[in-house]
């Protein structure tokens, strides 16, 4: 295990969206703690890191990561995936409960936390299953799971069909002020579909998933959130109408937040032309107008956070005709680079872009992370925004299911520190 770091990072552009700080400064980490940010610091014992031209950011916080453990060893491990996270500047990641077995017992929580601790690359924050086995029938032991270390509760992609059970689950979660994370998608309206119901799916003859499959479920959830007063976060919004619903809910004063996957900000339905199954994801990539609305939602803050929506898949998962391939993109390796790509294309202002992968997701999940705070254990990353990389050459996730492998992207990570320990140092 890594010792706590003593580092003096010299002359970096320190960008901390939470505090609004954006200046060239030195940053001192002593015994793992972020001691000071300021001009011309001095620390005789600390290791010097020359950071001219580099950016120093809070460690990234990822709200939506599907871990391969427990359950699916063929597509990597907690070790491989958290290492990919560290190399991508990510220090905190929120794990979805749809593992095998699902995160509905303290034993599973303990197993995940122990393996994550042993790997030592990132802080893994598990989400508890809202209902036992994600079956949507009986409540999971939410308070016990919270005490075991779960930061939020979710039924992941398994919609709770019964509105009464959902209402009671929300009331119970509200008792402990646990945020509930929704992944809105109506099961019947999306049944059998594998692509956005629109012109591309029609032409390719692919069964469609209409936008209304998402909005019907989102609207139901918002009404129940309003009725129960629970804190709620929505994963992976994919369409313009969802952004509008959320904007309205926030204007009404509801305690709700949302994220979007980086892929939905960069790609639209045209990416599946030629039956490109690397862009087969769920929810599906939708129209250009949907993409633009999601981007606008991120810009104006309606959509709080950007996630990797990391789903590492084995080599055979995409080796089939499009409808038979498994949906998902392995996203940890490219989250930061793709966000920088959006900034470089002038589609997203820098401050908001960095906020959406640091302070905002931490706020959504109610965790203390994603900011550079003096006196606390340091979680940060040092990046070279001007360097470019070919993801295929430095890929670390066990899942190589990504449409970005062979596309040159901006941004390399030089150093990642997670809770006082160096988790990534590039040579």
């Amino acid at each position, binding site marked *: 295990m890594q010792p706590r770091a003593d580092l003096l990072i010299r002359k970096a552009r320190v960008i901390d969206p939470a505090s609004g700080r954006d200046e060239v400064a030195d940053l001192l980490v002593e015994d793992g703690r972020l001691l000071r940010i300021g001009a011309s610091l001095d620390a005789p014992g600390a290791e010097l890191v020359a950071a001219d031209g580099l950016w120093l950011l809070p460690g990234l916080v990822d709200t939506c990561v599907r871990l391969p453990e427990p359950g699916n060893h063929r597509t990597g491990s907690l070790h491989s995936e958290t290492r990919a996270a560290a190399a991508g500047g990510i220090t905190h990641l929120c794990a979805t409960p749809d593992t095998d077995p699902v995160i509905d017992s303290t034993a599973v929580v303990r197993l995940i936390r122990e393996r994550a601790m042993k790997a030592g690359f990132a802080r893994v924050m598990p989400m508890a299953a809202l209902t036992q086995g994600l079956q949507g029938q009986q409540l999971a032991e939410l308070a016990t799971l919270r005490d075991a270390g779960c930061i939020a509760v979710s039924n992941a992609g398994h919609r709770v069909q019964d509105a009464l059970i959902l209402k009671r689950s929300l009331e119970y979660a509200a008792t402990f002020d646990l945020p509930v994370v929704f992944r809105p998608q109506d099961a019947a309206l999306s049944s059998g579909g594998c692509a956005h119901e629109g012109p591309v*799916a*029609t*032409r390719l*003859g692919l069964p469609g998933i209409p936008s209304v499959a998402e909005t019907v479920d989102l609207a139901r959830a918002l009404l129940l959130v309003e009725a129960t007063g629970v804190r709620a976060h929505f994963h992976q919004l994919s369409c313009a109408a969802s952004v509008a619903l959320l904007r309205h809910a926030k204007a009404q004063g509801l305690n709700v937040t949302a994220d979007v996957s980086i892929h939905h900000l960069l790609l639209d339905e045209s990416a599946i032309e030629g*039956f490109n199954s690397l862009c087969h994801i769920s929810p599906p990539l939708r129209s250009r107008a949907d993409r633009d609305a999601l981007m606008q939602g991120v810009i104006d803050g309606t959509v709080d956070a950007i996630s990797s929506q990391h789903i590492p898949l084995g080599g055979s998962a995409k080796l089939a005709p499009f409808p038979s391939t498994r949906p998902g993109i392995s996203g940890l390796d490219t989250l930061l680079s793709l966000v920088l790509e959006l900034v470089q294309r002038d589609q997203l202002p820098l401050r908001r872009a960095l906020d959406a992968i640091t302070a905002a997701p931490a706020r959504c999940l109610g965790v203390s992370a994603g900011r550079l705070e003096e006196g606390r254990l340091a979680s940060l990353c040092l990046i070279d925004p001007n360097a470019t990389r070919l993801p295929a050459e430095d890929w670390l996730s066990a899942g190589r299911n990504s449409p970005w492998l062979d596309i040159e992207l901006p941004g390399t990570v030089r150093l990642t520190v997670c809770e006082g320990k160096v988790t990534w140092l590039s040579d």
Partner: protein
Amino acid sequence: MTAEPSTDPLQLTGDGQLRNFLSIEGLPRSVLEQILDNAASFVDVGDRAIKKVPLLRGKTVVNLFFEASTRTRTTFELAAKRLSADVLNIDIARSATSKGESLMDMLRNLEAMASDMFVVRHADSGAPHYIARHATPEVAIINAGDGRHAHPTQAMLDMYTIRHYKGGFAGLKVAIIGDILHSRVARSQIHALNILGAEEVRVIGPRTLLPADIESLGVSVYDDLSQGLRDVDVVIALRLQKERMDSALLPSESEFFRLYGLNNERLRQAHPDAIIMHPGPINRGVEIASEVADGERSVILHQVTFGIAVRMAVMSMCMSGREAEQRSRGGDHAAAR
């Protein structure tokens, strides 16, 4: 973002010859016309005492049917045999290769047997594209129907039939009726008619059976059969599967027939010389009345005859495209030395 390249490089050689036949979309008009012209020269092969030409002699054609279809498979088999090819029929229950890996393994095995052509029928849209991407370039792939996506040889035999009876496509109004949503035939017909220069392609059906944004394929949409049939030159009825009633797409066959079934009364709206087509097998009294199916304007049985000739044309063109490509590749290789 950068989309995948169109299907053209998968279907055409560098100098524009057909090498795979996966989809009508993306093919130039000249290639479609060449298919029709070549098919014309094959039509009378069936009338000869010896119904064979030696164009595919010594070649092995594998019919890879992941979805049962005796009719289509038989016409491909007959077409291949009339071209003097050896034919291997493989009917694979879908479950046996539900995993992509075993599909790839099976392809490798078949390639190892020195197959020259795969004729692929699969329930998944895009399966022939997938196979074309992953098979060795020595094997030609012909799509015999994939999911809801495409059934290009069926569409070309329909085009052959239309050209045979109407002389060409300029000025033609064509109506396609019924279950467009699930129909790979309709999608391929729409592309073919638009590429070949038909004046108007109409689709007619209840909204439950029309796919989203179908207008984007270049069709006009009609809810009402009589309006949709007005002045059309070609009427194509699609087969209505019985299971459509189970998923609330339609209330009953009888209501469908009452609203969208073709009968002589309704056909009076169409041009007096209009022809009636159907990809078969027909459901009498569901999408089409017997009086129409067996009537003098019906060309349904001729479609079947033309089907063999069109498949012979496509198979021989793909094979010669392959061979030309390999010769030029071999030439490059020799030149490089």
